[in-house]
């Protein structure tokens, strides 16, 4: 593959602990200079994948091609990559300067080139003034930038980032996120970013691989995943909060034809439909006009929360006990339903997505 010759190619990585399958056939391609996020809840295998990429853990089978070489047989220090740790892992006994310069020596970078790279990176990350401090004297955000500097100054073929933002407070997290992305693009740095945060993955990635229970559930660009989630799991992760079995919707809908939706199916295997709270609206019984285009369900309003820009309703379909659905209405179009009101939940069929219970295994 010439287009990914300089990038990263992971082929069917598998890993088990005893009878416990941690990773099953993880495969993905990452062109040089782009950033892939491994997204998933804890225990989905994203950290295991990262550890195998870095060489801290062995895999049972599979290949990892970095450029043209399979790096699986290589020890961590012979793989041309660097890792940014969740807890930064700065060397506590070294100054910031020594921390950042640490990786240049084994790579035999000539002194003048090393000095130049060091200056550039320290300026890029805006930490030049901290060079004589020890890690213990830095704030979390500063430590994070030093860790990033230490990892990118060696110009690795692959940069690995292990939830690097999770120890920062919310405001700083956004700022650093943007910074990491622009830095990665500026340096054309191939990178793998591990996160459990959907928003983080969407904002920073070229490609996202959603992991669930050790397998890749879906892989695609942020836009693809957001607009076209294929499975229930991915849809939930992408904010499609209302998910119902197709059969249930068919039996309780008071308006709209499901056939127009199910006919879009390529495989016919989908068993669920889903839609986002922002795509639904609530209407009064009297004013609602049935049409083929609009799927409608009778619901009881059970909660209303004012969110400023919008109002979020929680309601439950009359005929489906225990099922909760969310509707988010722009504040200026809110009708002021209160708990206990009867209403009609309406969603346009173009906003309804067909979902698989599980990904199709090849």
């Amino acid at each position, binding site marked *: 593959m010439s287009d990914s010759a300089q990038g990263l190619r992971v082929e069917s990585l598998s890993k088990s602990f005893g009878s416990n399958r941690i990773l099953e056939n993880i495969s993905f391609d990452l062109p040089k200079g782009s950033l892939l996020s491994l997204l998933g809840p804890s225990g989905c295998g994203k950290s295991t994948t990262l550890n195998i990429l870095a060489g801290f853990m062995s895999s049972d089978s599979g290949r990892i091609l970095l450029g043209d070489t399979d790096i699986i047989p290589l020890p961590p220090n012979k793989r041309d990559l660097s*890792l940014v740790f969740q807890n930064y892992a700065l*060397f506590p006994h070294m100054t910031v300067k020594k921390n950042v310069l640490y*990786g240049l020596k084994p790579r035999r970078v000539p002194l003048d080139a090393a000095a130049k790279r060091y200056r550039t990176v320290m300026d890029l990350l805006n930490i030049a003034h901290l060079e004589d401090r020890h890690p213990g004297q830095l704030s979390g955000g500063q430590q994070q930038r030093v860790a990033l500097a*230490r990892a990118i100054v060696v110009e690795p073929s692959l940069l690995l980032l292990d939830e690097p933002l999770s120890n920062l407070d919310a405001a700083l997290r956004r700022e650093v996120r943007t910074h990491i992305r622009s830095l990665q693009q500026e340096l054309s740095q191939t990178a793998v970013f591990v996160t459990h945060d959907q928003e983080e993955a969407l904002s920073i990635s070229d490609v996202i691989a959603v992991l669930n229970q050790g397998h890749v559930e879906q892989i695609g660009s942020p836009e693809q995943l957001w607009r076209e989630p294929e499975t229930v799991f991915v849809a939930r992760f992408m904010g499609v909060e209302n998910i119902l079995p197709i059969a249930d919707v068919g039996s309780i809908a008071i308006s709209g034809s499901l056939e127009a939706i199910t006919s879009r199916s390529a495989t016919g295997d989908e068993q669920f439909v889903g839609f986002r709270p922002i795509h639904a609206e609530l209407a009064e019984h009297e004013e609602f006009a049935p049409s083929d285009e609009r799927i409608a369900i009778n619901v009881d309003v059970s909660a209303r929360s004012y969110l400023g820009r919008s109002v979020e309703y929680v309601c439950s379909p009359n005929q489906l006990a225990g099922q909760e659905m969310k509707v988010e209405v722009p504040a200026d179009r809110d009708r002021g339903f209160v708990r206990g009101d009867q209403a009609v939940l309406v969603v346009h069929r173009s906003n309804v997505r067909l979902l698989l219970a599980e990904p199709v295994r090849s």
Partner: protein
Amino acid sequence: MMTTSPRLTTTLTFVVLAIALVPVPVLIWTSVFGQTYLTVPPESYSLEWYLNLDRQRQLFDGLLLSLGLAVVAAVISTCIGTATAIAIRKSAIKKNAAGLESLMTLPLTIPTIVSSMALFITMTSLGRMLNMPITGTFGLLLAAHVVVTLPWTFRIMSAGAHGLNMDIERASLDLGYSRAATFFKVTLPSLRSSLGAAGILAFIVSFADLEMSLFLVAPGSTTLPVAMVQYAETRVDPALSAFAVVQLLIVMLLIVVANSVLGFSKKFAGGIKG
């Protein structure tokens, strides 16, 4: 629960300190008495005991032996303690870690004099069986001192290793350093304040040890504490006090030097903020 007032706590602290430390000035005072018998007030003052330390052959040789023994024992004990602590911290035997840790400190529960006697009896029989001298050798004395100091060095290194963020080793590996280079460039230096503390404590325990040495020293070549006991059996005079003060000064000097060289300073103790 009874609440203690801060003033009471402070007062108690000073009382305890006073009890512990008052004999020290007395010791220093008696070491400069001008006569060979201890009467208060002294007839005159003199520094001759310090100037002529080497005239007390047995005590002086004891001092030299104790110094050498303590240095070597502290180094060996710190090495073993460090290796064990790191191994337990990193290894797959983690679930047995608590058990191993108590095992390492088990010697503390046996009165040292008992260990010493047991070692003496065992090694004498073994020596007879192998037809070679074991008791009375420097090797056995050294081994015994390593044993007696090991629980301390292990405890300190274990605490240090627990505070160590093991990701720093991984960071060093993926930045291109081998395991060995990582150990010497990252792991050991990060533990240096613990190493300093462990080494000093081991030195002090060995340097001041009486019970372990009692059975194991060779006749005519004893450690300072043993020599002092033997000396005091016949007389107590300012020379003995002078040696005690020298002993004290060596330990104090060591602590001061270690403090400045190893830099147990605030910035270092702070470590990495989470």
